[in-house]
Structure formats: structure tokens, C-alpha cells
């Protein structure tokens, strides 16, 4: 019985990790003022990058770096286009998601001559071989990295000068500009971080599955955005929301569908998000200048 419970906890954590990483990434982008629905594409690109580098080099740690860089590459396009190009942030995100889907599909064809999946590979080796499901998860270096990233991200956002400036970029860009710091560079920093985190989330997926499959992000980027909102744009809050979503997904896998329709459990993250957005569970305030490019001379007062 205890074994079963521990197994479930392990499964919840395992499912939650990619959501949490991506949601934290989203928080960094949006705290700076840039909407990032490209998270879905970043996840996918990150997964592909991690798979390609791991297969090419045989070194999964290089794969991790490759995944993060791939995510950051896509994010930096989003940043350039929306921050300096002042393009609509939603449209840019949509376009990049479509681009990521097409590009990874093309990559599969070119590199592995397959329409559906890459070659298989070994992920990051675990530390030791315990037999309990929970212990084996705790022995996974990437899991430890994810936990460290979660707490580190929270500290970065709320305990450092960069974090303060980033939040100012989203909540009062003019004030930030007035202090002599660059609004655009800080925003770009936030978007870039969302690329690293989102790429790491994709890396986790692909390392778990030991191969890349077409479209494997499968909406996780959007759920991560929902979790970010439920977590009120705070890394720890977002991670907790992801645990909730992960628990729902675990239930959906484990519970027989006669009792509760699985569709209902699948919809749970979105229902929770709507409830939060509507203000029924404490109000969630998005960053005040979310979605607005910064123009120094706009408004003459």
C-alpha cells in the first residue's frame, strides 16, 4: 500500500516536472512584460535539440545543454520580434509554435528519415539503482536539477537586483528606464530565461521517453501557461499548481474510467485556471504592462 502511494507520488512528480519548468519560464517572460505562448514551441524545440545532440554525441549532458540552447534560440526570436520589432506577442508566439512543429518534423525526416520518431537513446544515467519508484526518481540527476531550478528561479526573481529590475520592466517600465536601466534588455533577459527553462522542460520529456516523437509537447506549453497564472506569476506558486495538474493527470491514468470520466480530469487544469482567472480563488494580477512594447517618447506628459 505504501509502495503504491510512493509510486503515485513519484509519478505525480515525474509528470509535473516539465510543466513546472515551462511554467517558471513563462513567469520570467511575462514578469518582464512579454506574453509567451511560444512556450509550447520552445518545449518541442528543446526536446528535439536534446534528442539530436544526445544521439549525435552520445553524451546526454551535452544533450541537456543542446535542449536548453534550442529552447533559447526559439525564445530569442520571439524576444527580438516582439521587443525590438514591437510585433504582436500572441501572433509571434503562434507563428513560432507552428514553426517549431514544422521544423522538428522536417528535422526528423532529415536526420532520422522518419515521419514519427527519432532513434532511441539512453537518457541521463541515474545515480545508483534503487528499486523503489520514488527513490529512483530522487536518484535522477535531472530531477535534482529541476528542483534546484525551481527554488533558484524563485530566488532569482524575488531576491536579486536582476529580478527586481525584471519585475519593474513588466509593472512600470518607465520607472525602470528612468533609473538608467534598459527596459528592452531586461525583457529580453526574461524571454531568454523562459527559453532555457522551456528547453529544459522539453529535455526532460525526451530523456524520459528515450526518443523524440513528432509533436510530443502535446499542449504542455499551454498547460504550463495556465499553471503560471494559477501560481500568480511566481515560480514556487507555478510549481505548486503544476503538482496539482500533475496529480490530476496521474489520477486520470490510474483510476478506472467508470467512476470519473477521464475527459473531466483532463480538463481539470483549464477549469482551475478559469476559476482563478475569474477571481474566485484569490485574484491573480498579471504584470501591469503585459503585452505592451515599451516606447520611451510615447505620451508627452
Amino acid at each position, binding site marked *: 500500500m505504501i509502495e503504491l502511494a510512493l509510486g503515485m507520488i513519484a509519478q505525480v512528480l515525474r509528470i509535473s516536472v516539465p510543466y513546472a519548468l515551462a511554467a517558471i519560464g513563462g513567469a520570467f517572460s511575462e514578469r518582464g512584460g512579454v506574453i509567451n505562448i511560444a512556450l509550447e514551441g520552445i518545449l518541442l524545440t528543446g526536446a528535439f535539440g536534446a534528442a539530436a545532440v544526445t544521439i549525435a554525441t552520445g553524451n546526454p549532458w551535452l544533450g541537456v545543454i543542446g535542449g536548453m540552447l534550442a529552447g533559447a534560440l526559439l525564445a530569442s526570436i520571439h524576444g527580438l520580434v516582439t521587443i525590438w520589432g514591437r510585433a504582436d506577442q500572441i501572433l509571434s508566439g503562434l507563428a513560432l509554435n507552428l514553426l517549431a512543429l514544422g521544423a522538428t518534423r522536417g528535422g526528423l525526416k532529415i536526420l532520422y528519415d522518419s515521419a514519427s520518431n527519432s532513434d532511441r537513446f539512453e537518457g541521463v544515467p541515474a545515480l545508483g539503482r534503487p528499486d523503489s519508484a520514488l527513490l529512483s526518481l530522487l536518484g535522477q540527476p535531472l530531477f535534482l536539477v529541476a528542483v534546484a531550478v525551481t527554488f533558484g528561479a524563485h530566488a532569482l526573481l524575488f531576491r536579486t*537586483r536582476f529580478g*527586481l*529590475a525584471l*519585475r*519593474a520592466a513588466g*509593472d*512600470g517600465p*518607465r*520607472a*525602470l*528606464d*528612468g*533609473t*538608467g*536601466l534598459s527596459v528592452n534588455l531586461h525583457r529580453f533577459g526574461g524571454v531568454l530565461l523562459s527559453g532555457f527553462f522551456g528547453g529544459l522542460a522539453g529535455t526532460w520529456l525526451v530523456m524520459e521517453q528515450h526518443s523524440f516523437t513528432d509533436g510530443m509537447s502535446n499542449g504542455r506549453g499551454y498547460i504550463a501557461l495556465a499553471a503560471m497564472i494559477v501560481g500568480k506569476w511566481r515560480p514556487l506558486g507555478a510549481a505548486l499548481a503544476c503538482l496539482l495538474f500533475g496529480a490530476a493527470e496521474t489520477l486520470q491514468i490510474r483510476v478506472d474510467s467508470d467512476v470519473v470520466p477521464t475527459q473531466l480530469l483532463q480538463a481539470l487544469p483549464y477549469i482551475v485556471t478559469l476559476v482563478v482567472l475569474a477571481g474566485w480563488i484569490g485574484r491573480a*494580477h498579471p504584470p*501591469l504592462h503585459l503585452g505592451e512594447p515599451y516606447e*520611451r*517618447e510615447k*505620451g*508627452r*506628459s
Partner: protein
Amino acid sequence: MNPAVEFVEVTKRFGPVTANEQVGFAAHPGEIHALVGENGAGKSTLMGILAGFVQPDSGIVRIDGVPAPVGSPRAMLGRGVGICAQHFHQVPTLTGYENIVLGTMAVGGRKQLGALMKRYGLDVPLDVPVERLSLGEQERIEILKLLYRDARILILDEPTAVLAASEVRSLFQILRRLAEEGRAILFVSHKLPEVMEIADRITVLRAGRVVTSRKKTEVTEDELVRLIVGGAPPPPARWSARVPGRPVLETRGLSLGRLAKFDVQVREGQIVGVGGVEGNGQQELTHALLGYRTPEAGTIQYLGQSVRPWKSHRFRQSIGVIPEDRQREGLVLGRSLVENGVLGRHERAPFTQGGILRWGRMREHAESIVDVYQVRPDAIGLPAVAFSGGNQQRFIAGRELTKKPPFLLAVHPTRGVDLKATQFLHGRLLEERTNGAAILLVSADLQELQTLADRVLILYRGQVAYSASREEIDPERMQRALLGLAGTSKEGTAKGGAPSNGPSSRGGGR
């Protein structure tokens, strides 16, 4: 000694509008230098240039005799320039402390801030998000921010607009002290008595050009007015006695937030003025009237009918409103005057027929407002954002008054508006009164209340602290009530010189 700041032939255009044209003058260390002029005269743009937010098209800005790189807040900050802008450059969600240290190495910040607060008597909570502070407190945070960076050239753009008289006093003491320390202070204001009191030197801008820059002792207030307006000033609005008609709007026991049991009656041809230091229930009053928030208790009667919360939409459409925040509540900034001119009335004749907009009529309407209310530039195709604050206000007033509403709610109608526009708007309000409109005027400006109102109520902590008809206003008692020093308001209400049974303070309790 070199001037602290020297403008040399500075020119800035925004599209077709020239904000600054060949501007040149100098401000010296230890000097409080006032910059005056009408709305749109180019004061704020010039200060924006000095702070680095606005890139001039041509010209030089010298700091301490050395040309400064323009168009970069960072560079100007490095040269010792600090700005307390009209709309504070603050991050509302961050605390005062965070706002102050933002962008600096915050080592030992607290200690240093504590010392500054003590030295200048700038007491203000530092650990609360600034959005929860009053405007006066936010301003103190801004000034602390400048001092924390040890700015030697301080720009204060309309710093007294949001302050009560007592707060203005202490601000002036601080400014004096800063000047004595050898800092140069650029003080932008509309309020000439304040300028005459605090400034050492005065520069007048008109239509983007410097008209004169001279010592205060070389100019009188009357001369200043002429220089600002460019000729004789318009005559002040004239109030004349008039017998009010039937009641138009009446509230009984209206309570919302800090506003407690507010009673008022406004009759045809009557202006009732509500004054007080900001944040004493005025906003609750206007929000309750407009139905933005549902009152906790009390009733609103309009033309003998009760205004229910779910009918407030209808009510709003039938009255005129000059809102508190013209840019947020009064205009759709990105749209043209043509469209803004029918805001709230676009679904009615003559602007719409069978659900189709009649652009010709809309254009004519906007033209006539621009014409009658002297909105400049007279280009109805431009978006509302392209107009200066005073011209936006003229347009809003025009739109609301051409409705010929039985009831008009005017909230701070002349805040941040220059003398000419103020007197024009006052004249229009009085004209509407003569035509029989019932007007509720909310204003922080006692002068304005005394000029326009038939009856004045002063709110303090959500309660009527003073109430008097025009004839029996005692300026000193009114001032004391404003600050919460008034003992009672019994006399004011009991006498009731006005013919109507007028508004009464809540003397009776429950």
C-alpha cells in the same frame, strides 16, 4: 560659475506639432527656477528632454557648462539630473524602498534612506507597495529617490497639483533647503501664487518658445499672466444669483467605503461643490453615482426616480460627466476626435440610423465642439492622444455639455489645465447653470469651489465636515474642516442660507 543647466536652441517636434522651438535659458546652482506656461506650451517636453526621455530634433543641453548626450535617461542621471514627473515614474507593485533602490547598488540603502528622511523631514512608509500610498506620499518617495541618487539638478513637474495646502508648505521648505545646498531646482507649475512664493527666477514658455527668463523680483503676478497668455488675460467667470428650480439629483444616506451617509440635493440651475483633500471619499461618491461601484447603503434619486444599480447604465447615458481621469475615463486615446465626440451617444440619433453610423453627422458634431470649445489643433481626424491635457479637457467638456444634460457631474474639471482653459471652462459651467443644469462639482481647489458653487460641502474622512451656502462661506473654517480641524459642522448646516433644503451633514446619526 557655470549654470547647472543651459538650454541652447533646443527644438522638438512631434509630427506636425512643434513642442519646443529654439528654446534657450539657464538655471543656476542654488536656484529655484520656475517654468511656467499654458498647457501645450512645451514645459513637460522640455523637462523630458532634460531628463533624457525625449530626444530633441536639434539644440544642445549643457550641464555644468559641458554639452550632455541627449535622449538617454541613463546619461542624464549620470550627470546628476533627476525628475519627479507629473505622472510619477514608479512601479506600482513594488514597495517604496524597492522603487528607490531600483537600478542602484542597494548596499546600506536603508541606513542612508533613514538619514535622508530624518534630515529633510520626509516621512513616508517604505515597505508598502506604492500603489497603496496616497499621491502625496508617492511624491515623497519620488523626492527621496532623487535625493538617494544625490541629484544636483531636480526637476519637479507640477509637484503641488496633488498636494493639500499644508503639504505644499512642507514641500516648499524642503525645496528651499535643497536649493541652499547648492542644487538647481526646476519647478514646473500652473499655480502662479506658488511660483511667486517659491521661485528665484522664472522662465515663461509660450507656444514652445521662451518669452522671458528673469528674476522673480523683476516681474509681478499680473505681468506674468500677460506673458503666459500673450496679451490681456480673459476675464474671470462671473457668478450671478439665480433661484434654483426643482430638485434633479438627490442622495440619501449614501455610503460606500469611507463615504458615510452622504446626503446632497442638487437643483436645476444650481452648482453644489464638494471639496476636500483627495482620498476623503470623493472618489467613492463619484463611483457610487456613476454606478462603477454599488453603494453599501443609501439611495440616489434622479428626476424623482430611484437610480438602481442595474439601471446605472441608463442614468450615465442621460447625464453629463467630466470624469476625474480624462485619459482613462473620458477618452479613447487611440481614436480620433470624431469617434470620441460621440462616445456614449453613438447608438443614438442623429449619429446612428438603423444601426449604421452616420459619419457625416459625427464629423459635423466633432467640428462644432472643436470650434465652440476652441480645441487646438483643430484637426478632428487626429487621435485624442495627440492633444495636450487642456485641449483634451476642452473637448470632453464640449462633448458632455452639448448633450444639454439635466445633471452634470464635473470631477476636478480644471486640474492640470491652464488659466485660459480654466476660465473658459468655468464660464461654460456657469452658463449651463444659467440654462438650468444641475451641477455637482467635485474639486480639490477651494478657489474654484468659491468661484462656481452655490453651496459647498467639505469632505473629511468620508463625512461632511463643513457645509455652507455661498454667502456664508467662512474661508478659514472651510480650510480647517479640510484638514479635519473643524469641531463640528452644525452651524453651517443649521443656518442653511440657501433657499433649498440643501445638503446636510450627518448630524443626526442613525
